[in-house]
């Protein structure tokens, strides 16, 4: 056996004698002699040489393989391809001096000469781009309809569960309330506090120019209570928990767990979707409330530091000038946002198919879609409240 040192990397048997192809002409016969190690690591050069080789005025080509030191399927393939291409041009091409251990491989490679597709077909024309857009739009509509159907399914299941409360899955419900609500409370509180601080600071600097810095209190309170507190919370929950729903349900789908549930006569909507959707609906208003309070707290702290409005004055101003309606307007939106987030998260999870990549793609999609829908819904609410002058 050879010593370890002789077999240097990267290819132990290779590199001592590179693969070479040499052409020589005698009369009308052209000889291509292959020498060296025809193994996959060193074939780039002979591959190019043979691919671009155009024998001239030749009736016959002979591949002399007598001095071929070693050959693998890739080496055999290149020789086979060269001979095949010559023959297809009407030139007589043969191997000679084939060593017995190489003959079988050449034959086997010849048997397996079939082109194969590498990638699914795709073309990049303008028409393709247009039809791509068209398909995107129609898919968006289909998805909207499917989501509506999913809403109906979830509501029907909810109705059945209310009629028969013993079928409610309490343990997952509590578990998800903890995961979505309790565990998110610190980060929601922190971010809301910071937003309150920033709003108050910006408001104070701008309003001071007009000598109306006292209105900073209203600015902070109304924007936080009406819009920012709940929007921020919804976006956080969509990113934190909506994505988790999609990934959890999606991995279960890949693992055929959903199919297993169906065969055991268990309803995946009841087992997986309902606890999650209910948990978000129950928890989002609470998180929204925390966000409101922390936003006001941050604003109050900043007012005290920058404007010398002390907490007592801040509270008094809040009490006199900011109607409670703003608080309710904000909070009433929470369950609707929650329903959106929960439904989209679970729905996209159930759409997972095939591969791990699909889990990733749909998780991204579910977060983007949920945040988009929350903002659209918020717009609809704004119009609604403006119309009823609330």
């Amino acid at each position, binding site marked *: 056996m050879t010593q370890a040192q002789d077999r240097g990397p990267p290819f132990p048997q290779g590199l001592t004698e590179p693969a070479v192809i040499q052409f020589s002409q005698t009369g009308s016969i052209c000889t291509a002699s292959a020498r060296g190690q025809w193994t996959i690591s060193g074939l780039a050069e002979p591959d190019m040489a043979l691919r671009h080789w155009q024998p001239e005025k030749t009736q016959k080509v002979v591949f002399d393989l007598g001095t071929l030191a070693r050959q693998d*399927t*890739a080496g055999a*393939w290149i020789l086979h391809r060269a001979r095949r291409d010559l023959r297809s041009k009407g030139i007589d091409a043969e191997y000679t001096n084939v060593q017995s251990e190489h003959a079988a491989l050449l034959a086997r490679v010849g048997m397996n000469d079939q082109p194969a597709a590498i990638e699914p077909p795709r073309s990049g024309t303008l028409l393709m781009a247009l039809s791509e857009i068209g398909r995107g739009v129609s898919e968006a509509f289909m998805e909207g309809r499917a989501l509506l159907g999913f809403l109906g399914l979830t509501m029907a299941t909810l109705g059945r569960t209310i009629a028969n409360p013993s079928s409610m899955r309490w343990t997952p419900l509590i578990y998800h309330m903890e995961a979505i609500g309790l565990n998110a409370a610190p980060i929601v509180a922190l971010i809301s506090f910071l937003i309150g601080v920033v709003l108050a600071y910006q408001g104070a600097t701008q309003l001071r120019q007009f000598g109306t810095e006292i209105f900073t209190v209203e600015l902070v309170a109304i924007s936080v209570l009406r819009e920012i507190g709940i929007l921020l919370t919804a976006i956080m929950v969509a990113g934190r928990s909506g994505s988790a729903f999609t990934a959890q349900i999606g991995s279960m789908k890949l693992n055929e767990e959903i199919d297993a549930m169906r065969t055991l006569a268990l309803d995946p909507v009841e087992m997986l979707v309902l606890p999650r959707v209910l948990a978000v609906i129950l928890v989002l208003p609470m998180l929204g409330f925390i966000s409101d309070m922390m936003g006001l707290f941050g604003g109050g702290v900043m007012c005290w530091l920058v404007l010398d409005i002390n907490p007592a004055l801040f509270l008094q101003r809040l009490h006199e000038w900011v109607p409670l309606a703003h608080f309710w307007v904000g909070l009433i939106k929470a369950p609707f946002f929650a329903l959106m987030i929960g439904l989209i998260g679970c729905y996209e999870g159930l759409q997972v198919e095939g591969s791990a990549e699909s889990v990733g793609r749909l998780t991204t999609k579910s977060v983007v879609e949920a945040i988009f829908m929350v903002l659209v819904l918020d717009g609809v609410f704004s119009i609604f409240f403006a119309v009823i002058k609330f």
Partner: protein
Amino acid sequence: MRDASKIESVISIRGLRTGFGDHIIHDALNLDVFRGEVLGIVGGSGTGKSVLLRTIIVLNRPLSGTIRVFGQDMANLSATERLAIERRWGVLFQNGALFSSMTVAQNIMVPMREHLALPDALMNEIAAMKIAMVGLPPDAGAKYPSELSGGMRKRAGLARALALDPEIVFLDEPTVGLDPIGAAAFDALIRDMREALDLTVFMVTHDLDSLHAICDRIAVLAEKHVIVAGGMDAILNCDHAWVREYFHGPRGRAAVQANR
């Protein structure tokens, strides 16, 4: 077929001890795999066949003992030396372990792309040839693993394992989950590949028909080591209780008769 003077041990395992925590899986295990043979590894569930395979291909660290592959001690190799050895073997994992974000053809090209500087056209041709060699239809090349059946996935996994023309292939239960016709075809494929490419095959299997049809030698794993290794006749004459039950049980007898 092989003459005795040419027998060379490509893998030799001496005094191997592996375990997880204080759960010892192998103890004082010795095993040789000879060049050009198909070695079948059998043993009850949980006796550590997969762990043995993973230990040889350095996915698990042994607690003690030496594993020599191509005469080199796997424990004392530098990263580049190890890479050089790793390119000389191919592994087919139990479920194929294809990269799910790539098509079958792209999967097969991964080792070529990563380790070699070859023109794209040549890589495409080689991938197409490997697809044909493992008996997949040409249109399978552009399919993603999730669009394949279990048997096709196994074939695609084998094609990827064979991409760099390895000298040893490791197969973990290659015929599990295939129908009998598919399993027999897979056996034939492995036998053909072995003949054509001069492969050494290390195969974990429970499939009695595979053992009869393609294995030159069989090693039985029990009681934390290889209790017997040898040709089918030697195994059939072994009087260890588990071996008797395995090869002389109803299924074992049926397989013996079928392959007579």
